[in-house]
């Protein structure tokens, strides 16, 4: 059995993030790390190391599903892993993210701050207890919007964790889809440069193993 590494405990960070955001919405800004780190790794490293090792959310879903046995552990429906659904969900997610950014822009240009967190893109939860004095209204508005995005994806992750396999969220996670797309493009570019395809690499490995 492999020993545990430091990154096996990143689920604690994810849990802290969700709890801290409930007490002070400005902690939502820390979630930018969960967006930027995988992109940086994919763009500059050409890998999905973030998904493979460092994703605290995935680890948390794994623990809840496997160790706490909250998952039915059933294979997800086929459509969930289809390209049209994954890229469609990514497009929808980005569109809603863009709307959130537009809301932030409106507050930046003088619109009143809306102290609500939107869940599942439809349900506006009042979040009046949050203290946001001392920061620019647009900074607070972005935090409300971003925390809504993070909570929404957590709820979807928990739902699919319970219904299907623990880490079913990983199948359609927009960040995972985006980083895999970037890695695909990078791999294709490198293959074109090397004059060698991934399929050839795969066949060589299999031939060497047999």
């Amino acid at each position, binding site marked *: 059995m492999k020993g545990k590494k430091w990154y096996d405990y990143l689920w604690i960070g994810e849990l802290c993030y969700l709890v801290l955001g409930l007490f002070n919405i400005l902690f939502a800004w820390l979630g930018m790390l969960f967006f930027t780190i995988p992109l940086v790794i994919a763009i500059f490293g050409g890998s*999905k190391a973030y998904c493979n090792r460092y994703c605290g959310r995935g680890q948390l879903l794994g623990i809840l599903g496997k160790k706490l046995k909250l998952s039915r552990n059933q294979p997800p429906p086929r459509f969930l*892993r289809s390209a049209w659904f994954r890229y469609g969900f990514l497009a929808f997610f980005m569109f809603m993210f863009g709307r959130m950014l537009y809301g932030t822009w409106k507050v930046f240009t003088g619109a009143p701050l809306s102290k609500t967190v939107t869940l599942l893109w439809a349900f506006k939860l009042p979040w009046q207890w949050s203290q946001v004095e001392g920061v620019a209204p647009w900074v607070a508005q972005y935090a409300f919007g971003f925390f809504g995005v993070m909570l929404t994806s957590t709820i979807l992750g928990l739902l699919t964790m319970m219904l299907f396999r623990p880490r*079913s969220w*990983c199948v359609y996670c927009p960040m995972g889809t985006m980083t895999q797309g970037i890695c695909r493009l*990078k*791999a294709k570019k490198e293959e074109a440069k090397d004059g060698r395809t991934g399929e050839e690499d795969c066949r060589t*490995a299999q031939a060497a193993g*047999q």
Partner: protein
Amino acid sequence: MERIRKLARVGRECVACGQCAAVCPRGAIRVWRGVAARVEAGLCVGCGLCAAACPAAVITLEKRGEET
């Protein structure tokens, strides 16, 4: 006694999450360039741990067709 060994095969819809690589006791499966998981046939013992761990359920066990 004849025994048909199995080999893990990764489907085209692999999302490269790396859960298979994390559970493989032989290090026979790894994520290739963030694109998809790849199985090294010589190392795979067909235990099926990767197939059980795959959240997308795209890993299947196939007959290797090798006799021991």
